[in-house]
């Protein structure tokens, strides 16, 4: 009964490729997020969707495109992968509209390695 799941768990790919990471939550939450955790463990918000609408879009390259087909799913597509994209990507969800008091529930992470 995994609450927030991500696939794949590990992703190894060549520079220049396009890849997607999928996220699903079965908590009935309205808001979903993508975070990037770099090699120094710094966890930084990338995107947030509330009921399929984008509410946070941090300064990330436009090679990164989130897609939310419904409020239970938020996928992350990355075009033309670069070495610097290597990181662990975490998906999260929260009950409310994404406000500052919402507790966020995290997925297990996807470790992306770009060669």
């Amino acid at each position, binding site marked *: 009964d995994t609450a*927030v799941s991500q696939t794949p768990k590990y992703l190894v790919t060549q520079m220049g490729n396009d890849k997607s990471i999928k996220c699903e939550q079965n908590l009935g939450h309205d808001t979903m997020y993508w*975070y990037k955790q770099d090699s*120094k*463990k*710094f*966890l*930084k*918000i990338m995107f*947030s969707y509330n009921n399929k609408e984008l*509410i*946070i879009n*941090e300064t990330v390259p436009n090679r990164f495109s989130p897609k939310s087909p419904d409020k239970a799913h938020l996928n992350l597509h990355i075009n033309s992968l670069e070495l610097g994209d290597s990181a662990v990507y*975490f998906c*999260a969800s929260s009950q409310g*509209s*994404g*406000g*500052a*008091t919402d*507790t*966020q*529930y*995290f*997925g*297990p*992470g996807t470790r992306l390695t770009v060669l």
Partner: protein
Amino acid sequence: AQSVSQHNHHVILSEAASLELGCNYSYGGTVNLFWYVQYPGQHLQLLLKYFSGDPLVKGIKGFEAEFIKSKFSFNLRKPSVQWSDTAEYFCAVAGSGTYKYIFGTGTRLKVLA
């Protein structure tokens, strides 16, 4: 702009020792504060949170944290750690009226049996 500092990057303790992990933040307004923990091979999960009221908050597994507004701090404490507390601990801040958490860089705690 919001920012969070966790000054202890690695902490090693023996079982039964007391723990205090520092968290300082920078934000001009009202904040909501969180501590998350990531056990080896597991998800990030919430330990405790502070929104308002009593500045001493208690969380799961015997952890507590104290919000000191004048010091912009939200330190995590546990009187007696166990081997099972070995994990990475993240402090996070969300400014009221914003839609995002700002995380610290984490503190890796290792408890020796």
